């Protein structure tokens, strides 16, 4: 039956001594759309391969709908999968491709015909039955791949960077299309991608992977607004980092010295369950470009800096600003084009503002 729960328990995969996936535990609810987001080599594809059954895990357990499928052969798992380059059978027509999973299950000819017809309507490919994959555009091939993966009503649908081969506009259209189909059918989807926008747009939850482990799992807004590590903070969305030193952390507010003359009071990391920072600890202060606003300096105010460059990006202008804090880092700030406050000259002195909650504090790696 389509849309069942998926449970990964202490899953590991070792190639020789290296662990591609290291002790991953993760529960996905029935009908949930979860993206596994990570840079290449983070183990996300290996994770998918193990769920599909193409590689046996070195340790751990996989269960679908509460039943252990760890030792089940891939062709008996009934998992739907959409591959990176679609993997459509080039010697079969669109119809034969979509009917293939049903043929393998030994369904009656009439039943196959009806089911395939429904699927073709769902993915809006009516009339393409007799074409071969090579006669289709990238987007159409993508739809065939989705139809083939879903036609057998899989309890779990796996998607391995399925939109990577498409250009930007088509990719955005297909994101919404896949989301529409998934919602309509109530499919459980595990979607592997390295594209954070894709993960944000489509998912109920995002699982960020790095070095074979899950570093944070949460709703897209959670991941974006409350990154739990400097890695997640910089991997998801744009992020500025400002080096500083902890002056005092009272588990509610943390006072960070960012230059010899300036100390900022920001939310303590202890609010998210991290340890309280001790005095003198080197930290990295993170703040997103769109959280920063700034104006020409008219007096002596916090976070002073100078303008390095101004870049027009369409809906907003991106500024590169050099802060007068430790190490003089260059940070990015975005201002909506409509609220343009410039023009700014190069090296013009400005002052940056951000809401207190916009700052995240991460302990810097110990020297």
């Amino acid at each position, binding site marked *: 039956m389509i849309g069942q729960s998926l449970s990964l328990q202490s899953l590991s995969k070792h190639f020789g001594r290296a662990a591609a996936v290291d002790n991953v535990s993760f529960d996905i609810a029935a009908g949930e759309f979860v993206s596994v987001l990570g840079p290449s080599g983070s183990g996300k594809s290996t994770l998918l391969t193990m769920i599909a*059954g193409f590689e046996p895990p070195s340790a751990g357990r996989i269960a679908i709908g509460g039943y252990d499928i760890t030792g089940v052969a891939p*062709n008996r798992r009934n998992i739907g999968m959409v591959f990176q380059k679609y*993997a459509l059978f080039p010697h079969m027509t669109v119809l034969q491709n979509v009917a293939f999973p049903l043929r393998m299950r030994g369904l009656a000819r009439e039943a196959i015909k009806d089911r395939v017809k429904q699927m073709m309507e769902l993915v809006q490919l009516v009339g393409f039955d007799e074409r071969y994959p090579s006669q289709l555009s990238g987007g159409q091939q993508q739809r065939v791949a989705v139809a083939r993966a879903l036609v*057998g009503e899989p309890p779990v649908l796996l998607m391995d960077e399925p939109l990577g081969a498409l250009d930007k506009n088509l990719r955005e259209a297909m994101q919404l299309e896949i989301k529409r189909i998934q919602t309509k059918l109530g499919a459980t989807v595990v979607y592997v991608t390295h594209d954070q926008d894709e993960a944000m747009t489509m998912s109920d939850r995002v699982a960020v992977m790095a070095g074979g482990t899950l570093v944070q799992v949460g709703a897209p807004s959670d991941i974006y607004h409350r990154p739990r590590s400097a890695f997640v903070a910089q991997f998801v969305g744009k992020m500025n980092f400002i080096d500083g030193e902890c002056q005092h952390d009272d588990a509610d507010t943390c006072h960070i010295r960012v230059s010899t003359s300036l100390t900022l009071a920001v939310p303590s990391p202890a609010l998210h369950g991290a340890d309280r920072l001790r005095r003198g600890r080197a930290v990295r202060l993170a703040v997103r470009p769109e959280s920063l606003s700034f104006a020409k300096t008219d007096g002596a105010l916090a976070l002073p800096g100078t303008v390095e460059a101004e870049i027009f990006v369409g809906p907003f202008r991106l500024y590169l600003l050099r802060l007068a804090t430790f190490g003089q880092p260059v940070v990015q700030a975005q201002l909506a084009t409509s609220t343009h406050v410039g023009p700014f000259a190069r090296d013009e002195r400005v002052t940056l503002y951000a809401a207190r909650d916009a700052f995240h504090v991460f302990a810097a790696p110990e020297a």
Partner: protein
Amino acid sequence: MSIETDIANPGAARVKRPATAIDRPYGATLAVLLKGAVLAVILFYLVLPTLIILPISLGRADYIEFPPRELTFHWYRQYLLDPDWMAATWFSLKIALATSLSATVVGTLASLVLVRGDLPGKQALQALSLGPMVVPHIVFGVALYLIFAPLQLTGNFVGFLIAHTVLAVPYVLITVTAALQRFDFTLELAALSCGASRTRSFVLVVLPNIAPSIAVAAVFAFLSSFDEATVAFFISDTGGKTISRKMFEDIDFNLTPVIAAVSTILAGVSLLLMALIRSARQHP
């Protein structure tokens, strides 16, 4: 190259301007003509032997006559009416077809392992299986004669089948492993994820996609047997000889234009089969 650099450095422009046919000095044209003539002579040398046999085979005279004074299919008729030639032809065809089948099956199965298998000593097997291409055929022929003679396998279908399959297998291995290396194995994973068993995904997905290459391998194997002469020379006998062996004997003892007719047919079959493969590959 921008205009500015040309202006800044007028000397460079002269060096960099590509030479065209129009502004080539006279000497260069002569060199081109000379190069063309040399190439034409070499190409003529390459095709001459193949092209000369056709007019010879169509001549009327009992001896080799060039250019032929009168064109006739007389020698082709002689070939078709001669029971010895016919026996040798059928024997060769039987062996070549059987060799093609056995070498293709044996080679394709082994190719799967060479590309995707887990087998200790795979490298050694690969080197060994290409051995028949390296070992001089005279050595292999004499060795086979030594073994086959006491077993009465000379002039024998089974003896030839073994010998020619050994010689044909490397061609199959090279062709099919190349096809398997080109094949995208995610297609097989896709078939598995669609519920197909290993066997069915091989039969329904892998096989249809490498089938053209297997067909090519089968033709290579067929021709390698049909045209094989050295080993056939040693393991034939009066009771069973291939068309190559019969030709070899007749060239030595009875040089009639029938041989030219047979040669034309042999070359025609080979070239036609290979040309078919080539065009099928270019326009799938």
